[in-house]
């Protein structure tokens, strides 16, 4: 081949520039088509829920719906807290201290997403081998701190963002 043919021609430049502009244009059109499937503004507006916890006796729990998912609010007895804290981190597939899963000074309140981290079923309370929760779908066991102990679930049940508005009210989200 001679040098003349190897040289970048005006036409090559035009081709490359057209493809580049075309690609950007197609991308700009495709992105809205993809992003429209993400949660819309109405979904995002449901992001917080306030819960009255004054009626919950020690050892009992309630379930509330937050963003379409159940949230377990459990008021734990001192024995249950002790049991959760006595567990060695080496026994946990997803090591996490019980202290890290509750608010300091409010140790009796366990607030977590009642969603199995395997495939999203709702675990049953007071079931399973660890005195906590048991997921009926694929057999994951959780302890009194909602930490996975056995089964296919990869992580502990998630702690959502929450705060105590006052002594009787929790705001989730």
């Amino acid at each position, binding site marked *: 081949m001679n040098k003349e043919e190897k040289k970048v021609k005006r036409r090559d430049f035009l081709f490359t520039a057209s493809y580049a502009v075309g690609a950007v244009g197609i991308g700009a059109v495709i992105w809205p088509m993809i992003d429209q499937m993400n949660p819309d503004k109405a979904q995002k507006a449901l992001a917080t829920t306030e819960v009255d916890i004054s009626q919950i006796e020690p050892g009992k729990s309630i379930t509330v719906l937050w963003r379409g998912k159940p949230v377990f609010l459990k008021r734990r007895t001192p024995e249950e807290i002790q049991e959760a804290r006595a567990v060695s981190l080496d026994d946990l597939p997803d090591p996490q201290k019980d202290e890290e899963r509750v608010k300091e000074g409010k140790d009796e309140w366990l607030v977590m997403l009642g969603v199995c981290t395997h495939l999203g079923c709702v675990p049953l309370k007071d079931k399973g081998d660890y005195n906590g929760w048991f997921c009926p779908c694929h057999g994951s066991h959780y302890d009194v701190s909602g930490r996975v102990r056995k089964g*296919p679930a990869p992580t502990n049940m998630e702690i959502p963002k929450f705060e105590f508005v006052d002594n009787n009210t929790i705001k989730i989200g």
Partner: protein
Amino acid sequence: MSEHEYVPKSKAAKWFNDRLPLLTLGAHLTDYPTPKNLNYWWTFGGILTFCLITQIVTGIVLAMHYVAHADLAFGSVEHIMRNVNYGWLIRYIHSNGASMFFLAVYIHIFRSLFYGSYKSPREIIWILGLLIYLLMMAAAFLGYVLPWGQMSFWGATVITNLFSAIPLVGESITTWLWGAYSVDNPTLNRFFSLHYLFPFLILGLVVLHIWALHIPGNNNPVGIDIKKPSKDTVPFHPYITIKDAFALLMFMIIFAGFVFFSPNILGHSDNYIPANPLVTPAHIVPEWYLLPFYAILRSVPDKLGGVILMFSAIFILFVLPWLDTSKVRSAVFRPIYRQFFWILVIDVLMLGYVGAMPAEGVYLVLARVGTIYYFLHFIVVMPVVGYLEKTDPIPMSISEPVITGGAEPSLARKLNEKV
């Protein structure tokens, strides 16, 4: 072939055919030379076409009465069942039709596995068929969600959560699929939209599947290449059409048996409870046709591992034409492979059974054994058996079977004897 010589009789037909050769296509489909020894296992292509059309027609009708909204969907399905004229019939045909569709497709796939229909030169037909099968599973799953009962809701939750196993982006993908932070109204809406779309994608792939089939022509129970047209072939019409029609009639009797006598036997009674995001049913099972894959998913005690293995179980089929090293297509002439074929059939049926049982104790052991064999069959048995097996003599043509003697040993046989 004959279609090139086709000339319409009337002037008007010729005028039209010169502009759009639909009549040539019709003539091709009518005269299409088909092996004369096709058995009833070959009638399921026609049966599947019938199933697809049935699902599309009943589906379009159901969409005229169904409401895709989380608050109204369950009620609208009951409205179809109780108030819409013949609504119960149309819905039962549609819901049982999905099961019949899968029954037929599994027979069709195993037919292909037995007679080696996936082998050269039919790899593209096989791959297109698998794509159709994948879309069928997606469409069936999406459709099962629409009544918005407990099984719909929790089935949708479990299946969409499979994607959350993907590292890093898994959570974002699940949220994107849901359009919310859980399976919710936006999820139902888009599932309805996609459920309406997929059958038409399947229809498009079916056209390609048949087009690709008509290039090499049908495989046959003997699995040998035949001259077309020749004394080994018959024209598609009326020979195959009438045989397909008879088989379809038998199939429709079974279909009608389900629709009229036990329309709910293949479903799950929990799906007549409205969806409740706070309570998971004690025992979640997918529809029967997905159970073997569900068993594979549950046999792995690791989330990502289970998901990967389940998808691999399907995607390994795509490379099947290259895993099978045997030059002989039909298992009729493969004494060793034939036995493994039946082991695979039993293995898949067993996986389906344990998929419906709780994932514990002996069922878990069976699921693991079944999963291991499933993969061994494709990764080890197929290449090794194809290489080592001494196949039986193959006839030269359909008309001259080996048994009668006199025929020259085929090329494949000569090759075998050298080994």
